[in-house]
Each structure stands twice: as C-alpha cells, then as structure tokens.
C-alpha cells in the first residue's frame, strides 16, 4: 500500500520558488504561463498492521502524519491519495 501526500503553499502565501520558475519559463518563451505554484510530493510505503486496515483508517492515519510533520498547516495545504 502506497500513500501520496501532496503539500502545497496555501493560496495567498507568497511562493518565491514558484515565481522564479514562472520567470524562467517565460525566459524560455512559454509566455502563456500565468502563474506557478510549487509544492512537494511525499510518497509513503505503508506496511504491517496499518496497510491491512480499511482505506478510511489508512487515510486518517496518513492525514495525522501530515498534520503532525509532513505539512505546516500555518502556511501549507495537503491532500492524501492512496495508491494500490
């Protein structure tokens, strides 16, 4: 069982790295890019008792991980996706 946690900056929080990427894309001639927001993808390989639980419980556990460590909810949003 694999879980993917997507972490991104909240709307309204300045994303300097996204801005820099946007700038570089424009430099390459991709003028139709209006804005870039950069985030991160964290893949968790789950095993043992957790992986054997119902999907809702796995999702709840991964959300708990995201809230406690993977995302800083002051500035970031996250979403959880279970794969396989």
């Amino acid at each position, binding site marked *: 069982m694999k879980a993917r946690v997507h972490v991104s900056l909240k709307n309204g*929080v*300045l994303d*300097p*790295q996204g801005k*820099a990427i946007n700038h570089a894309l424009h430099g390459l001639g991709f003028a139709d890019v209006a804005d870039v927001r950069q985030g991160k993808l964290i893949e968790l390989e789950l095993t043992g008792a957790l992986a054997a639980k119902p999907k809702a419980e796995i999702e709840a556990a991964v959300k708990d991980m995201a809230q*406690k*460590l*993977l995302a*800083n909810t*002051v*500035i970031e949003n996250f979403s959880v996706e279970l794969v396989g």
Partner: protein
Amino acid sequence: MKAAIVTFPGSNRERDMRMALTKVNNGKPPVDVWHGDSELPKDIDLIVLPGGFSYGDYLRCGAMAANSPIMQEVKKRAEAGTRVLAVCNGFQIACEAGLLPGALMTNASLQFICREVNLRVETTASQFTQKYRKGQTIRVPVAHHDGNYTLDADSVKRLEDADLVAFRYADSLGNVAASTNLNGSVSNIAGIYNAKKTVLGLMPHPENATDPVCGGTDGLGLFESIAESLS
C-alpha cells in the same frame, strides 16, 4: 543563571552561543544537551535553541527538530515558564514546535542573505531586552535562506497590540520601511515573543555581535539582559 544549549544534528552556532552566554555569566558555561536526550537538568533558567541547519533543513526548516525527543521536554519546561531563546534555525524550530506563532518561509528574494543588518528594538518590557532603549537601533549579523516570517494579518495585529514584536528590520536611523525588509517578513518582523514573553525567537544572530574582534558588540545587551534578569 543556569543555561542549557540544545544541539541538533546540523546545528552550527552552538559554540558561538556558548561564548556569548559564558561571557555574561561570570565565566560559567552553559550545559550542553543533545537532541536525542529526553531530559534537561532540573534547575535550568534558560534553554537556548541555536542556529544552524538541523536535520539538513530537509522537509521544512526546523520541522524534524521540532519533533525530536528533547523538544517534548523543552515544550514542557517552556509551558512551566522556563525562558527560551530561539535564534535563526532555533526560531524556525520554535515556530514548528508551536512555542511561537507563525512560520518561516523562503526569503522573498530567494537569496541566502549573510550580512549585518540594523534592527530596531521594539520593546524593552522584556527580560531579554531590558538593557536596550526602546527604539534603539542595533547592528547584528544575519545568515539565513528561510527567514521570511509569515503570519496572518489578524495575528500580527494581536502581536502588536500585546507588545510582542521584539525586533524589526530597519535602517541605521531606526526607520522601518519596505526597503529595509531584507527577507520579506510580514511587517518587517525580525523577532517575536510568546504571549507571556518567556520565549523569544529571532532570525538575526546577536551571539555573533558580542565581541569587538567580530565587528561589534550590539548583541551583548540581549545576553546582559538575560543574565541580569535570571541570575
């Protein structure tokens, strides 16, 4: 005063902090504590979270250090009123641990900034800054990539109304303007207190401005304030 410095894997200013604290404490050095420890000595008056790059700044600056074993104990002591000084990466750790509000993001310029800056002392009603004058400008170094202090507007107003902003980035005359905001921090904030003013977090390095050999002693006032109030 009995101080403890917590060292994490990747801390690099703990020795500078040790020198500054020893200097104001009649030559008595602070106790060293390792991130994997789960206990602090009983009679500690001050806990210091020093600068550096704990856990390589992986995931987010300070995120993993904030969850290390010793931080559970630091949080308990802080709640009980033990003073905490959190500098640079320590400030990031304190925010991630919930000891202070807000978060530190990448500098708006995307540049690593390593130079001296001017700070305006916003309040002297604190055991950390009582030796300064309100509105005084001090010159201390900064060295960070993620010093962009972020907090929602309502919370910033609450900090201001409660006199919890410690330092702001200013010019040499103490004027605070957009042009003196080196990293994009909300309201030019360089340092803040918790609600009880028992925890101070700041991005600049006062410990590196405590010896004339290093270019200035403007940071000494902070350590003298601490030593005077906790001894």
